[in-house]
């Protein structure tokens, strides 16, 4: 079963790349092979496929623009994919196989922090540069990895911008930022604990007071006891992160219990489809996202964020009736980083390419990309969108906002 699935995946990929090879304008360019173990089956399959589509779309765009120019030769990217079945041990094995058997010299990342955590030690051991787009956990960037680069914002930034926003609002009202009271309810898992750490850190900087700090259970279906405390203690900001069940439970019960907090910020609003499921209950809630098509970022290859959105939809028609997920956009950005690094390095030597990636300073449709020594992207802020009358509107960071913030929420 396992073998068949992988084989099927590989066959599909070969068929896919043949198709793309047929379309390429720059037919005289040689192939430049990248490797990727990605979740095409298993629990991360949906998002794994989003990421793969993002990779392929970027490769197609680069081909059409004349390929990657390294020195006086030109190349087209070609990716060897394996299906990691959403399992970490499988991911690590496949990374070994890509490097040792397929002789891959450069890697694109898998989907999820967990898989990235499994693969990074392997690429590190063989000194293979990997640009990843889907692993946000900050534990990836305190291990001293030198060959791992991530284009997305790390998870502790997911809701930290809500604290900045709350401080701004307090000052507008003529109050001090340190008067703001914060309530935090996050799940007890690495991702949500990162978010909590980020919020706590930023709140401590301006001296905000944390009045509620609770951990949600894994099988959460009722958080009324926390919300009762919210009613009693009246915080100014409520932060909830517990994947889609946390978002769904929070929005439902906040609506039912008529909790009025000036600012409520969540993760996973889209995954839980809080607007579709709970309608008006979701109004004025803030949701974090890595990217949105309404942002004003742009670059030469993809154009603006909105152009990326429409062009991607016309290439992959199955996305026509939904928004393009940010997982796809950041995967495309990762390929773009590679193309840019190859051109600047002017050679295919992997050490030179690694150094070129480390010096990346790129403005893209997905946001600015500049890596810290640890390999995470420090130039792109997290985006906060507010649900206004059932639509997601970018309200922070203020420089890229499309709409003003509705505050206070009631």
């Amino acid at each position, binding site marked *: 079963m396992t073998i068949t699935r992988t084989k099927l995946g590989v066959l599909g990929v070969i068929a896919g790349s043949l198709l793309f090879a047929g379309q390429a304008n720059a037919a005289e360019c040689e192939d430049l092979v990248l490797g990727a173990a990605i979740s095409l089956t298993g629990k991360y399959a949906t998002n794994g496929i989003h990421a793969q589509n993002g990779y392929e779309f970027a490769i197609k765009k680069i081909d059409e623009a004349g390929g990657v120019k390294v020195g006086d030769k030109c190349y087209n990217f070609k990716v060897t994919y394996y299906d990691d079945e959403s399992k970490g041990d499988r991911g690590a094995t496949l990374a070994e196989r890509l490097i040792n058997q397929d002789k891959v010299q450069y890697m694109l990342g898998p989907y999820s922090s967990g898989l990235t955590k499994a693969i990074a030690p392997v690429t590190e051991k063989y000194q293979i540069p990997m640009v990843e787009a889907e692993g946000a956990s900050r534990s990836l960037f305190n291990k001293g990895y030198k060959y791992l680069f991530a284009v997305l914002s790390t998870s502790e930034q997911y809701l930290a911008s809500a604290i900045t926003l709350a401080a701004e609002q307090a000052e507008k009202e003529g109050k001090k930022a340190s008067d703001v009271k914060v309530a935090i309810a996050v799940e007890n898992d690495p991702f949500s604990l990162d978010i909590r750490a980020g919020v706590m850190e930023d709140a401590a900087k301006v001296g905000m007071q944390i009045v509620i700090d609770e951990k949600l259970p894994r099988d959460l279906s*009722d*958080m009324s006891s926390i919300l009762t405390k919210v009613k009693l203690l009246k915080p100014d900001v409520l932060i909830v992160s517990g994947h889609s069940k946390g978002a769904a*439970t929070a929005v439902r019960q906040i609506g039912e219990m008529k909790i009025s907090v000036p600012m409520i910020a969540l993760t996973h609003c889209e995954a839980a489809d809080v607007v579709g499921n709970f309608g008006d209950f979701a109004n004025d809630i803030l949701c974090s996202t890595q990217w949105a098509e309404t942002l004003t970022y742009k670059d030469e290859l993809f154009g603006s964020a909105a152009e990326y959105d429409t062009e991607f939809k016309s290439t992959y028609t199955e996305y026509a009736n939904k928004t393009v997920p940010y997982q796809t956009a950041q995967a495309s950005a990762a390929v773009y980083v590679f193309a840019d690094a190859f051109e600047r390095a002017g050679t295919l030597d992997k050490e030179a390419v690694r150094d070129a990636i480390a010096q990346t300073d790129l403005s893209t449709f997905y946001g600015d990309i500049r890596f810290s020594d640890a390999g995470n992207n420090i130039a792109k802020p997290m985006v906060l969108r507010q649900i206004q009358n059932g639509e997601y509107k970018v309200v922070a960071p203020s420089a890229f906002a499309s709409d003003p913030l509705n505050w206070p929420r009631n």
Partner: protein
Amino acid sequence: MDQIMGNLGLLFEFPVVNLKIIIDGVMIGALFALAAYGLALVWGVMNVKNLAQGDFVIAGGYIAWWVAGLGVPALFGVPLAFIIMWGIGWVIYKLVITRVIERDLFTSLLATFGIAIMMAQLLNLMFGSDTQSVNLGYETLFFFDGFVDVPIAKLIGVCMATVLAICVIVFMKFSRMGQAIRATSQDARAARVLGIDTEKVYAFTFSLNAAICGAAGAIIVMVWVIQPFYGITYAIRAFVIVTAAGLGNLPGVIAAGLGIGALEQYGSHIFGIGYQQAIAVLLLLLVLVFRMIQQRRSRQVLK
């Protein structure tokens, strides 16, 4: 520690919060009691400890969610889940349970554990791993300056649970089949001698249990949220309640169900919601210790 003291302080500072906690606890406890009653039934009659209890609940929830998505009014989901889960329960009985009923404890535990895993994964494959719920769109009633809130959806859910419980009790007391079930649970051999088709009784009991769970799940999806792997939450509560109340003690099951609901809410208020499940299990431990001491005194423990 500071937080625990702070939370305790809130209870005294705003006494009305106690009322709110008890009301919330009783509401969720009523649904725990339903699932527990089904478990006690199967346990008492067939001596099968059904570990898939919680997954029956979740399956019922998904049935209600699914038909609501087809445009059927959400409240009809409850009887529909009852009927469909009855059928599923019967099929599971004929496929699996009938083969393990006379075997030892571990065979039936393993078999029902297998069913639990299968059902959770099937639900995951059919409906995806996202949380789902049905929004009835009813208002919320507020009392005491808005401190005590009672969503009408919850109220309807609890009323439906009560009606269902009363129907089951009346059925067990007065119907022919109910009498046969009670006779079989008292002494299966004697019942067979007296002409009761115990195989039929077993199949009926197991289907009835699945149906009760299904209805409970359909109520849960209107009030809280469900996810394919949430079954264990309800299974654990059902076991705690039945262990605390004892088999065949219906008032006990209801009282224990409401009690555990309220105690959990208190626990999660004081220690944090993350400890909710731990509190349920701690209660089980306390009940077991208490029972052991009790039985030791009356020298009923087998050595």
